[in-house]
């Protein structure tokens, strides 16, 4: 038998190697974003709820024509960004940029001015950096950031848009009632401060998509969440526990959510709601749709789990008009 030359060996190895790789490129169907395989990690301890300073409201709902001014006033009413951001903090802002289909006037994605104002406030309070991110279910992140207007607004305010690339790992959810573990975007769990900035929209299954629902943007395998959605969303919130929730109700999507696309479905409410309590913020936002908070599955579940309170009569609310 003749000897195999080095040249032949390398060629043969390449052929065999490539033909073994190629079947690996076969389509595998939906939800095939690769995960970083990491054994179930223990999450960082949930941040203790920031106590409400004196002379500050538990929840603020501010109405006015200028979204930037309204956002600033809402933050001021609950103690200012300084209550949440300490010097040198690594801040993540999680708006709703769920698709790349429409501009901000369609109320499908969070108002760029609201997000940019929060970026500005956080940097002003001493944050080391402010990253803004979401993982759209339709369209590439880059196109969604551009079409929603959030990308340009954030960068103009000094923040950074982050593309949620594969740094997901399976994390245990110790307080989870239905879910005991799920796949989360690691940097969100590692940040010093997470500011949750949903836009108030109609949603057929959940009823409304608000703060807790907005957290679905930081996980993988979202289709599988839709069984027992309300409890599962509350379970997610019990792990992520954003310290600040700002509900963008400048424009509200009243029907055909969460994607929208019809300007007739958009109601201009010019309102921003802010609270450290994600359940209370969602509960107040629900009333803007003339719904009772306990009618929304994840609000009721979050209240039951002790993540916050949906009883708006038991908390101090600052309702202001600019």
């Amino acid at each position, binding site marked *: 038998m003749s000897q195999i030359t080095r040249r032949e060996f390398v060629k043969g190895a390449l052929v065999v190697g490539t033909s073994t790789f190629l079947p*690996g490129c076969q389509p595998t169907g939906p939800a095939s974003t690769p995960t970083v395989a990491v054994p179930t990690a223990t999450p960082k301890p949930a941040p203790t709820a920031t106590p409400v300073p004196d002379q500050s409201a538990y929840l603020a709902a501010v109405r006015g024509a200028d979204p930037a001014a309204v956002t600033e006033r809402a933050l001021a009413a609950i103690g200012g960004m300084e209550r949440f951001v300490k010097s040198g903090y690594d801040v993540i802002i999680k708006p709703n940029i769920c698709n790349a289909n429409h501009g901000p006037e369609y109320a499908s994605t969070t108002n760029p001015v609201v997000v940019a104002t929060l970026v500005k406030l956080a940097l002003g309070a001493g944050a080391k950096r402010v990253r803004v991110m979401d993982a759209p279910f339709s369209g590439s992140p880059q196109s969604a950031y551009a079409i929603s207007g959030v990308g340009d607004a954030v960068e103009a305010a000094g923040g950074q848009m982050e593309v949620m*690339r594969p740094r997901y790992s399976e994390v245990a959810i110790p307080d989870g009632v239905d879910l005991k573990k799920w796949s989360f975007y690691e940097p969100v769990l590692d940040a010093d401060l997470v500011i949750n900035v949903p836009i108030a929209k109609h949603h057929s299954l959940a009823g409304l998509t608000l703060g807790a629902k907005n957290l679905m943007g930081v996980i993988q395998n979202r289709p599988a969440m839709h069984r*027992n959605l309300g409890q599962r969303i509350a379970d997610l919130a019990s792990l992520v526990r954003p310290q600040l929730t700002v509900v963008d109700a400048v424009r509200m999507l009243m029907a*055909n959510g969460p994607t929208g696309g019809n300007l007739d479905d958009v109601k201009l409410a010019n309102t921003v709601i802010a609270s450290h309590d994600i359940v209370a913020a969602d509960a107040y936002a629900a009333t803007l749709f003339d719904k009772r908070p306990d009618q929304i599955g994840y609000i009721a579940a979050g209240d039951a789990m002790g993540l916050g309170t949906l009883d708006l009569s038991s908390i101090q609310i600052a309702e202001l008009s600019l």
Partner: protein
Amino acid sequence: MTKRNRTAQRWRQARRITQAVALLGAVILVVLTARDAAASVTANHLMRLDPLAALAAMLSSRRWLIRFVPAIALLAATLLLGRFWCGWLCPLGTLIDWISPQHDSERVIDDRWRRLPKVILALLLFAALWGNLTLLILDPLTIFVRSITTLLLPVVHWVLQGLLSALYGVAFLEGPLYALDTALHGTLLSYKQPAYQGLALLSAALAGILALNWIKRRFWCRYLCPLGGLLGLVARLGWRRRAVTDACIACGRCARDCRMGTIENADGYRSDPSECILCLDCSADCPAEAIHYRGQRAESRPSSGLTRRQALQALGLSLGGLALMRVSARAQRPAQYQLRPPGATESELLAQCVRCGACLRACPTHGLQPALYESGFEGFWTPILVPRLGNCEYNCTTCGQACPTGAIPILDLATKRLTPIGKASIDPDRCLAWSEQAPCIVCEEMCPLPEKAITLIEREAAWPDGTPYTLQLPVVQEDLCIGCGLCEHKCPVNGEAAIRVSIDPLG
């Protein structure tokens, strides 16, 4: 070494460099064809150089396609210079050269087989006359674009992804890696791993073409390539050709080295201008400097063209083949899941699609796939949408822009959003809501239309423990549905989705 030799060697070096640059450029153009690369020059422009695709597409669609003027220019240049495309520019030719062995095997192949490219060319053009372009899968540029798109780039993507994921663990690399990752994904690299169906056939085709080199170098170019056949015919008519002077010492080196095997010892080391690809190896290495490229019609070997009988046979064969395709059951009954890109009608697509795969590369979700059997052999490797792999994005019109012939029309976004590809329908036995009374309605949630094409029936139901809840059951409104397939893509049922887009049941 005399001046002539030095000049010849410099030209040969220029040829090598040009080959490399052209190959790299062609790969880059395919990379840039992806929507998110947002480039203005793409594989679309590469295909415009292709005289075979140009001729076939214009015959088949009965239209003058002005965008193919570069192809006409290439034909004119071939008339002037010879078959230089094959030796200097063709990316498949360069690939073949780079992996070729040093010498041909001892096997003897009768020169009459050199007619085969012209037979294939005749079959192709006759079929085009009758509105069929299936044989353009044998065009070297379509082979190249299709192979880079479906084979090379997905592997590159996968390897890069794996490397990045592995290296993320290294702490000090995280920052720069992340910067690189986000700079590439969603721009030059798609934000999803590209994955194409039918990889066995696609890779076998390319591997086969490359493997044939171990029988004779440039086997594809010599005995199969229809574009080579066309350019050879034109080169034969041309002005400039290789000539051997009396200085020849009959060492036989050129005949041995000729990568097209067209230099004949017994024929005074002359070559057939329809076979010579101007690689310039012979003139650069000739010890007697006896080889020139002359501007007058120098003496050369006779060409193996088609006889009249063979041309008629080709005509008959193409008519017969076409008839068979048209009477197949598949042609009479379109496949249920034969979903075409928006705006593309079946007959126009089959008559104009050159099977290059540029649209596959452009599609940002990789929902456009090369058809296998869905539209019969006539539609082999034309684009179809497979929503389970990728939906047609609501804000995208790139496939029409990438298509070099207009087989996929260019639509403005507003028109595209109103143009149905197909219609979704729900299988109630698989749908979680209909069959298990489970809350789901992801399909309704995802539907991007301002007035959703999925509405909900509400029914009172109860959990096993008796707690009542309102069950929502999805119903497709077919008059609204445009068949984008986002519902099918996101349906959480494993295996076939419970909601599937098919051709319009009533259309």
